[in-house]
């Protein structure tokens, strides 16, 4: 018994030490800067941060965009996952491969493509005006809309893939069974599908929300300086102003938000899980 414990420790030791020393240690030193002033330990960096209207706005914008992206991805994700689950196995494999694709393509290439599409004379506006949906081209680039669209495309697969796998794990024939019992589609979704796929939703939701909070390339290129998010603000604070205290504060906030989301959603998944 002690033997396998020791063997287990020996096997996890290299990876654990590597991460602890080569990764966590420097990160902790950096984060500790958020709690320090020349005079000693303090929380004033945080109060300063939230006292600044710009920072406050960036914080709420990041939060808001993260929530919106997650909510829309979840709605659209369920519809997509159900449709894919309905497809025959051959095309299902292909559809899943297509879903994976955006995750595998360089974020620079991906964002660059949106630059070409969302512009005033870009693909989207040309299409909209030519079918007469709008007279005046829409301003999308450098607005929260552009960031929203870019983030949605990036994280949508991370929402759909767990949903597909939890739909696959759903006991067969529960949907026909509910239909036979007279449930409407809405009732089926609400009472059968949602509870049975909650785990997938939580995994997808966490990945999407946390991913949106910490995205860099998308807001940097599609949002620009008028749509700063926490991560782009962090970069700006460091590279423009050499302001490592603010950088540390933003880092702590980002990590705290990520961890809180993880914990909260995990609890949500298990809260009423034991039906």
């Amino acid at each position, binding site marked *: 018994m002690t033997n396998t414990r020791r063997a287990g420790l020996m096997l996890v030791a*290299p990876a654990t030490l*590597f991460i602890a020393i080569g990764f966590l240690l420097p990160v902790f030193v950096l984060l500790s800067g958020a709690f320090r002033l020349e005079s000693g330990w303090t929380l004033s960096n945080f109060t300063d941060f939230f006292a*600044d*209207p*710009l920072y*406050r*706005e*960036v914080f709420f914008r990041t939060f808001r965009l993260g929530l919106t992206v997650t909510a829309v991805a979840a709605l659209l994700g369920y519809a997509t996952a159900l449709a894919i689950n309905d497809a025959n196995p051959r095309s299902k494999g292909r559809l899943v491969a297509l879903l994976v694709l955006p995750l595998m393509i360089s974020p620079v290439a991906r964002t660059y493509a949106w*630059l070409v599409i969302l*512009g*005033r*004379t*870009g693909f989207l506006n040309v299409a909209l005006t030519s079918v007469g949906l709008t007279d005046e*081209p829409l*301003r999308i*680039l*450098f607005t929260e809309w552009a960031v929203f669209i870019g983030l949605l495309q990036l994280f949508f697969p991370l929402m759909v893939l767990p949903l597909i796998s939890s739909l696959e794990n759903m006991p067969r024939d529960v949907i026909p069974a509910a239909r036979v019992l007279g449930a409407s589609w809405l009732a089926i979704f609400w009472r059968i599908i949602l509870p049975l796929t909650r785990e997938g939703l939580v995994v997808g939701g966490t990945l999407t929300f946390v991913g949106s909070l910490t995205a860099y390339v998308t807001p940097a290129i599609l949002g*620009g*300086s*008028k749509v*700063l998010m926490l991560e782009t603000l962090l970069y*700006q604070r*460091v*590279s*423009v*102003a*050499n302001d490592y205290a603010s950088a540390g504060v933003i880092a702590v906030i980002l990590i705290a938000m990520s961890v809180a989301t993880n914990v909260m959603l995990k609890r949500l998944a298990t809260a009423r899980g034991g039906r």
Partner: protein
Amino acid sequence: MFNARLTVSAAALAMVAAPAAAQELTISVYGIAQDAFDEVLYTPFEEICDCELVVETGNNSERLAKLEANAANPVIDVIAFADSAALEAAEKDLLAPLDMAQLSNVDGIYDFAQDPLGNGMAVGYTFYGTSIVYRSEEVSIETWTDLFSEELAGRVALPNITTTQGPLTLYMIQRAIDAEKAEAGDFSDAIAMVAENRDRIVTFYERSSQIPQLLQQEEILASVVGRFAWPGISSIPLEVEWALPEGGQSGGLNVLAVVAGTEQTELAHQFIDYWLSEEIQTRIAEARVDSPVNTAVEVDEETAEALTYGPEMAESIHFLPPAVQMENRESWLDAWNTEIAR
């Protein structure tokens, strides 16, 4: 396992590291037109010095941040900066004094470029005008405050405060409102004006390379840029003009400096001197990259048109002194963040 990691890393390092030359000179410059620089400056210099140039590129603030971060172990030997960034670096003890005796070509450049920081730590290698570019068939520009005209609502981009052009733009707007405050570095009226028109400004750009694209995609009809961006802008298939507004144009000076702590002092000076030479300044000018500071350089009219050329031009530019920039930067940034960025 740990050894395996080290071995693999070491092997990988060996693969990516440049083959060792006799000597290496590491320079840090703007990323603009690197192909042209390679052809007319880097390669010829490598032949002369029998050394290898390693080039880092980036904008002022990023490179300054890195220079400061690496102060204990400098990796850069020669750095090209905007004058204000150079002054900031100098005040942080990141630069070494220049040995003018080793720079034979300094005497041949404009006076204002010989010791622009006033501390003997940098020499100017190029200067440029900063003005408004605009789509002439769509709008006309008479003054700096025309940036906020009705025709330009939702169709204009301004440089962000964090770029070199940002303060220059505020400076010229402030001059149009109250020149005295402008010279003192008080841009409060200009900032208020930008803030008021915040929603009519498409974006505060951080890279001037965006401007040709923004113009061509008809995102914007006008913007403020440095002349170095003009070749890219004038090449788009639209009527774009360089405005000569009432109140003139601003501009900037880019300088070369030697990084404190470098071991390649001699080679660094040799490189700077070479860059200032008539031959190289002419070639860079003819490549339509940087305007020459060497007074002996003569170019044809077409080239001159693409650049910011000649003593009269230099005379007409309203430079914003680096000391004023240093002194007021924090307050501009604060005011900008509270009034505009949010």
